[in-house]
Every structure is written in structure tokens, then in C-alpha cells.
């Protein structure tokens, strides 16, 4: 029994031990579970971190790409721009320079980069005015536009350089950067000066010519007054003399001769003097008005062209009725012009049209106008005989007469052209023989 009891106790002990172990095991198991959970959480954190890291990396690559592109872009621009460019730091030391800088000033990067700007090429940029601008003006205004330096450059001689400068703002770096563009404008300035000189020479010459034209035409009129005047005086004297001689008792033969002289030869000579002086007078009057047009300054004002054209046409009322001409004027836009000159311009065009109507059909003149592409356009169109292509260029020439039989001295169209040019406009001629002629006048928009 005792033995049995002992066995039971032993078994109970064993059981107790086993129960203990089982408890411990459970505890361990619980610990393990907790650890496992921690591990899982950490793993998740790790995964999230990795993801963040990848994203950052991608970002970085992207930004790097953008930066590379921007740099590339800027470098390409600098390389492409034909103007020499140079970048300086705050102490005016060269950071970099463009290819055209090296080309223009015949130097190399080794002698340029990192060097002080004023010490480059034996101090060729050490120009006091430029120094003042870079040191004082630029920091204050951060830009400097179109500053011209005329200077003897080391390797390229005397040149005029146009300098533009910008301060580049750098947010993080404290040091400032300066971008300088240096353009060689020597040739351009020279050409400009030449042009200016030639222009003023031309102006002076034109003025001189106009003066000569004016003086000669004007001075030629005075003797002409005498030629005509005394010719008339002679005429009167001749008449008196004839009366006297006719009353004298002369021999028949003498009478015959004196009659021939007094009634035929002298009057004939006088007739030629009169008509020639008249022709000269017409030419001089025309030339005078042309020279006056050239000397006159135009007085621009806004013109009511409907009113102006009415006045122009009114002047031709008699001729229009007499020759049974039809003039049709449509609504005309306003323009900026010298009232008297524009009046003369259209008067001359109508005058011209009237000289060249076709006798086979009733004359017709159409005047119209419209606004077109920055111009005011007026058209004067007739149904006259037209102008042969060979003659069209000559129409505006001085003293050119298409038909020697017509009246006038061949000045009207020269005056038209001069008026149009004085108004900075254009005149175009379109004509077909047998159909008619069209003059198109383009004046600058109001």
C-alpha cells in the first residue's frame, strides 16, 4: 500500500512538474507571440521607410534631371548666342565665359576663368566708367542696359562695345553673380554714322538743289517780264509808226518794202517772241510751284475727304458739263494730310484723266476709297485711252508729256508723285490701253 501511495505521490509530483512546464511554455509562447507581433510591425515600418526612400530617390533623380536640363539649356543658349557673354562673381572674378567671348577677344579659358575681370588681357577692361558702373550702379539697380565703351582692345584694336549686365539672384549662396553681354557694335555704329552723314549730305544737297531751282526759276521770270513787256511796247510803237508812214507820200516801191517790213516781218518776229516767252513762262510757273512744293513743310490735319473731293470736283463743274463727263465719287474715308496738297493731288489726277478720254465713248471717272492693311486707299479710275506699258514708268517723270498735243507742260503727275511721297504714301498705276487708267493712292493710316 505504502508502495502504491509512494507511486501516487511520485506521479502527482510529476504531474505538478509537468503542469509547471506547461505554464512556462504558455508564458514563453505568449512572449513569442508578442515578439512576433513586434517583428511584424517593424517589418511594416521598414517597408514604409523603404518606400519613402525609393520615392525620395526618384524625386532626387528627377530633380537632378531638371537641373541638368536647365544647365544644359542655359549652356546651350550661352553657346548659341553670338554675343560674347561672361559670368563674374561678386568680386568680379570670371566664373565662365561663352565661346563667342573667346572668339571675339581672341583668348582662351585658361587665361580667363578665375581671373579678375579688370586684369584680363593686360587690363583691357579696366575702363574707369565701366568700373564705376559695375561697382556702384549695378549693385543698386541690378541691371545695366546698353552701355557703350569705346576702347583700344589688346588684340582686336579700337572697338565700340555695347555692354549689358544683369545681377543673378542666388537664393542660398551669398555671393552675387553678374552676367555681362558684350556686343561689338563698331561696324554698326560706323555704318550708322556713315548713314547719318550721307543723309545729312543728301538733305543739304536736296535743299541746295531746291534753292537753285527756286532762284533760277524766279530770277528767270524778271527778264521775261521785260521781254514780254518791251515786245508789247514795240508793238504799240510799231502801230504808231505804221500809221505815220502810211500817211507819208512814198514811192510805190519803197511803200511795198516798208509795208512788208512793217506789216509782216516785224509782227512775225514779235509773234515768235511772244509765244516763246509765253512757253517759258508756263515752264517757269510750273517749276516754281514744284520747287515750292519741295521746300514747303506739310501741315498735316485730319481731312474730311468727302468734303475735300466735293470741292475738287466743283472746280471742274464747267468742264464736266461741257465735255459731258460723268464723275462718280463714293464715300471716302478720312485721312491725315495737307489740305492744299491733297486737293492739288486729286485735282491733278482728274485733270490728267480729262486729257485722255477716248472720243469713242462718254468719259467716266470713278473715285473711291477704303481702309486697307494699315493704309488709306483712294482710287481714281477713268475709262480713257489708257497708257501703254512702255510709257507707264515715264508718267511721273518731270516734263514728260505722253501726248505733245495736249495742254500743259508735263508737270502734273510729277507733282502728284511728290505730294504722295511727302505724305509717306505710295502711288500705283494700273492701265490697259483702250480700257482705262487707274491710279491707286495709299496714304498711311490715321
Amino acid at each position: 500500500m505504502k508502495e502504491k501511495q509512494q507511486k501516487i505521490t511520485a506521479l502527482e509530483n510529476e504531474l505538478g512538474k509537468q503542469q509547471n512546464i506547461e505554464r512556462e511554455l504558455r508564458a514563453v509562447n505568449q512572449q513569442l507571440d508578442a515578439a512576433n507581433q513586434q517583428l511584424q510591425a517593424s517589418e511594416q515600418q521598414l517597408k514604409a521607410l523603404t518606400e519613402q526612400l525609393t520615392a525620395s530617390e526618384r524625386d532626387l533623380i528627377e530633380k537632378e534631371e531638371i537641373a541638368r536640363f536647365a544647365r544644359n539649356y542655359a549652356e546651350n543658349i550661352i553657346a548659341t548666342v553670338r554675343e560674347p557673354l561672361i559670368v563674374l562673381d561678386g568680386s568680379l572674378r570670371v566664373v565662365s565665359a561663352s565661346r563667342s567671348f573667346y572668339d571675339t577677344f581672341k583668348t582662351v579659358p585658361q587665361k580667363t576663368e578665375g581671373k579678375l575681370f579688370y586684369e584680363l588681357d593686360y587690363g583691357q577692361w579696366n575702363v574707369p566708367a565701366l568700373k564705376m558702373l559695375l561697382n556702384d550702379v549695378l549693385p543698386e539697380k541690378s541691371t545695366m542696359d546698353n552701355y557703350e565703351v569705346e576702347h583700344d582692345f589688346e588684340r582686336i584694336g579700337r572697338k565700340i562695345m555695347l555692354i549689358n549686365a544683369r545681377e543673378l539672384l542666388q537664393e542660398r549662396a551669398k555671393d552675387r553673380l553678374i552676367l555681362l553681354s558684350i556686343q561689338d557694335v563698331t561696324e554698326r555704329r560706323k555704318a550708322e554714322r556713315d548713314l547719318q552723314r550721307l543723309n545729312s549730305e543728301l538733305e543739304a544737297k536736296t535743299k541746295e538743289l531746291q534753292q537753285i531751282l527756286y532762284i533760277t526759276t524766279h530770277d528767270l521770270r524778271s527778264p521775261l517780264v521785260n521781254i514780254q513787256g518791251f515786245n508789247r511796247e514795240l508793238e504799240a510803237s510799231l502801230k504808231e509808226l505804221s500809221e505815220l508812214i502810211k500817211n507819208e507820200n512814198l514811192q510805190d516801191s519803197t511803200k511795198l518794202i516798208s509795208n512788208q517790213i512793217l506789216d509782216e516781218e516785224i509782227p512775225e518776229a514779235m509773234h515768235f517772241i511772244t509765244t516763246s516767252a509765253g512757253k517759258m513762262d508756263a515752264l517757269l510757273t510750273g517749276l516754281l510751284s514744284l520747287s515750292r512744293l519741295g521746300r514747303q513743310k506739310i501741315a498735316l490735319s485730319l481731312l474730311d475727304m468727302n468734303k475735300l473731293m466735293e470741292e475738287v470736283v466743283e472746280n471742274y463743274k464747267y468742264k464736266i458739263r461741257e465735255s459731258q463727263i460723268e464723275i462718280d465719287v463714293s464715300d471716302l474715308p478720312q485721312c491725315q494730310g495737307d489740305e492744299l496738297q491733297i486737293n492739288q493731288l486729286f485735282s491733278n489726277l482728274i485733270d490728267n484723266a480729262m486729257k485722255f478720254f477716248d472720243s469713242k465713248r462718254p468719259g467716266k471717272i470713278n473715285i473711291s476709297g477704303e481702309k486697307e492693311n494699315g493704309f488709306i486707299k483712294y482710287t481714281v479710275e477713268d475709262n480713257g485711252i489708257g497708257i501703254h506699258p512702255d510709257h507707264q514708268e515715264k508718267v511721273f517723270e518731270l516734263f514728260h508729256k505722253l501726248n505733245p498735243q495736249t495742254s500743259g507742260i508735263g508737270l502734273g503727275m510729277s507733282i502728284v508723285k511728290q505730294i504722295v511721297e511727302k505724305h509717306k504714301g505710295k502711288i500705283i498705276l494700273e492701265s490697259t490701253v483702250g480700257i482705262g487708267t487707274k491710279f491707286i493712292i495709299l496714304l498711311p493710316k490715321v
Partner: protein
Amino acid sequence: MKKELTIILAEDDEGHATLIRRNLKRSGLMNKIIHFKDGEETLDYLFQTKEKKDGIPSLLLLDINMPKIDGVEVLRRVKEDPDLKRMPVIMITTTDDPREITKCHELGCSNYISKPIDYDKFVDAIRKLGLFLLIVEIPDVNKPMD
């Protein structure tokens, strides 16, 4: 215009002067006409008569284009002088430049006649001037102003 009054003709062209004189005479104007060939002579004479108190001429017929001193300048000096400025001045010239005409009017010329090249018109203009001078009362320049 009284016969005793003198007319000064300043005209550098002898021919023109002759034609003007003949035609003024034909229109019936019998006044004495003194002719000068340039602006300087004209001014010298005018200022001398003024000093000598022997009577400022009654009328000045003045051409513009003259050697030495031109007509516009003569007009200006005449109109600047307190005594001479009362003398009527008629411009007779070949110029048809409107600005020149305006200038003369601004300086105080009494009238302006363009010498037309056309002789009939020229004669007509001068004769009309003569007729005008015949009937017009020209104030006595030498009388003190009222």
C-alpha cells in the same frame, strides 16, 4: 493823291522800272517818281530826307528781290522808324510765294502787287495801281500826327 507828292520806286531791274513808270504815267499819274536800284540806296535816301526835313516821300513802291539790302529788310527798317513808318509801302514783286506775301503784310506793308509775267496782266495791275493812287488820299507823312 496830290501832284506834288513824290513816289519812290525801289526796283533793281531797269526794264521793270521803265515799264512801271510808263504805265503809271499812262494811267494818268503825273507825280514825280524817283527810282533807286537797290535797297541800300533807297534806305540812304529815305533817312537823308528825313534828317534834312525836306519831306518824306509820300509812297514807296518796293520790289523784294534787290541786291545789297532786299525789299523785305527795307520794309522792316521803314516800319521800325517812328517817322518813316507812316509812309505807305506797296510791294511790287515777281514772287508768288504766299509765305513771303504774308511776311510783308506782317511787317506792315499797305498793299502787295504781284508782277504778272503776262504783260497784259502786268500792265493792268500797274494801271490799276495808278488809278488807285490817283483817287486815294495819301496822308501827308510830314504833318505831325493829330
